[in-house]
């Protein structure tokens, strides 16, 4: 046996990437040969793609409902059809991500408030049919003369009530996905739980506003532009606050793939919001700004997702915050 003997597992300087022996007690942590402690989620691109598409669907339903009630048929159509497309994609991504896709329906066995995924399933099950009914009405109205046929007339007339209910039930779809990520032991997701819902609804508003600017007639895009700018501002401010409150677990948001995605998200979102503000009556600038906001939202979701995965793979982000609590004499304990 001629292996080199190394001290307690592996000691590593905090912030450094190379394994090294160090005797500075508060600048190092110990692990079992550098192995991860918590496991990263087994989720792949389906889940961040769903985070984006779910938010896009929710924001689009809100825009469609508002457009319907304020007499903007073009924006209504863009919103309803955008919502159903994004929702269909979401459902496909969610089923595809399962280890046993054929058992998707088991999600409906129970309603469990301690499981954000169960809560999310029921949120989607409430919202989905109304979003679908509103989209069906929109499609019927696209066919000339279809409204004269009995059943189709019914579908068409249900468009407004269904669309309004879809709008009212949409915001939880955009917000719960933050809880879905945060309610884990993944360090960079859990530590973000206070601000992440606001980052995600901001991102949803920016994306759906962007889609509206891209697809609705120019004279009707005002509300979409307002929502997009408001969303971009909320996302940018809350993302900054989030990073400041996360301590060491904010690091993965700046490193590697996640870091590149978060930087791209910020640039695209700010550029898209600025473009939206300056677009005026220019269809081209509005469309480009809308596309930038959509791309920014995609990058935000993938960036947050990847940062969490990276934080789970590195024992540093599990050990250091917990060790710091212990060394301050503040372990997490139940106190009456």
């Amino acid at each position, binding site marked *: 046996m001629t292996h080199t003997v190394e001290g307690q597992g592996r000691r590593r300087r905090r912030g450094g990437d190379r394994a090294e022996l160090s005797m500075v007690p508060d600048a190092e942590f110990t*692990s079992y040969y550098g192995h991860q402690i918590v496991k990263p989620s087994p989720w792949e691109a389906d889940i961040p793609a769903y985070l984006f598409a779910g938010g896009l669907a929710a924001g689009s339903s809100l825009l469609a409902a508002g457009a319907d009630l*304020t007499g903007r048929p073009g924006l209504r159509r863009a919103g309803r059809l955008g919502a159903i497309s994004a929702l269909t994609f979401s459902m496909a991504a969610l089923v595809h991500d399962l280890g046993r896709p054929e058992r998707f329906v088991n999600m409906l066995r129970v309603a469990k408030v301690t499981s954000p995924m169960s809560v999310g399933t029921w949120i989607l099950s409430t919202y989905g049919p109304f979003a679908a009914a509103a989209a069906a009405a929109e499609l019927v109205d696209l066919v000339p003369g279809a409204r004269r046929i009995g059943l189709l007339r019914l579908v068409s007339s249900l468009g407004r009530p269904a669309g309004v209910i879809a709008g009212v039930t949409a915001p939880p779809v955009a917000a719960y996905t933050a809880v879905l990520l945060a309610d884990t032991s993944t360090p960079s997701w859990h530590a973000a739980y206070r601000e992440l819902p606001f980052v995600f609804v901001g991102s949803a508003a920016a994306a759906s506003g962007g889609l509206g600017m891209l697809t609705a007639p120019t004279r009707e895009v005002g509300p979409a532009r307002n*929502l997009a700018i408001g969303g971009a501002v909320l996302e940018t401010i809350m993302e900054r606050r989030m990073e400041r409150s996360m301590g060491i677990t904010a690091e993965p948001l700046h490193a590697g793939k996640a870091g590149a995605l978060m930087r791209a998200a910020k640039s695209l979102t700010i550029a898209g919001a600025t473009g939206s503000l300056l677009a005026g009556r220019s269809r081209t600038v509005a469309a480009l700004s809308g596309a930038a906001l959509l791309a920014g939202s995609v990058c935000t979701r993938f960036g947050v997702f990847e940062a969490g995965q990276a934080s789970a793979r590195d024992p540093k982000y599990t050990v250091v915050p917990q060790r710091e609590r212990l060394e301050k004499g503040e372990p997490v304990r*139940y106190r009456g």
Partner: protein
Amino acid sequence: MTGRNSLFGPVDPAVEAGYQDPPPRKGFFTDTSICIGCKACEVACKEWNEVPDDGFNFLGMSYDNTGSLNADTWRHVAFIEQRKPVDGDGAGSRTPVDLGMPARHSRNGHEVQLPDSGTDDDKPDFRWLMSSDVCKHCTHAACLDVCPTGSLFRTEFGTVVVQEDICNGCGYCVPACPYGVIERRKGDKATKKNVGIAQKCTLCYDRLDAGQRPACAQACPTESIQFGDLGELRERANQRVAKLHEAGIMDARLYGNDPDDGVGGTGAFFLLLDEPEVYGFPPDPVVTTRDLPRMYKGAGTAAAALLAGAVLSFLGRRP
């Protein structure tokens, strides 16, 4: 049933889950100070539970080629080589010497004479830590809390078990676990069972039903793995720590035995000879659902903000 301590704090998990007059809570006390690293527990577990191989990997570190608990490893023996005296007096590293062989505990004196140790001290400066890790069967089990299908459930013994015919492989339990225990099984559906489904230790639920000890505890030759009623195990563990402290092994400490800790205490707890993270344990784990009410509140506020923002977007002058 929901009570004050449903998400956090000391509670009897079987009663909390709704069982009337459940049997005493069962658990493991793994005393790592007498683990000899034989891996009989790993083998017995695989045999009894038909757990497939985990790849026959060579990890190139210590004697551990299993690495960690995962879908295909429900007992995992960790091997830690340390430049520390066997009695762990905390002196830390001294002049490193390649001993070529692991040091051994002597039964009484805690001093081992090693050939050519090269130090002027007669205490050995090298020790092995070995520890058999397993699912903790937490009082507040995050995996169970977040499971959206009800596949993960609490047994009458207070343990946490996956119903493999219900699990749809959503994978939520995997990042939820603060210890990194549960995992979705990967591989070829034709040659492995339960591929795509969350897998972990069941505390041999089938054996418990028949009044038997779990396979790992049955196979352990040194009784490092002790199975029994949790209350009794906790008492026994306290006595053992006191005895080790008396013998001068001040590094001995319990991990997971405190019902007030971040997961409400674990059904499987440990006697360790170093900090938890040395063995690959989180030093101060907390069940993520402790913060869930605050998370929902934040999401509710955010959702309201989105609705309000959408309404505001339609106000104002029309062009």
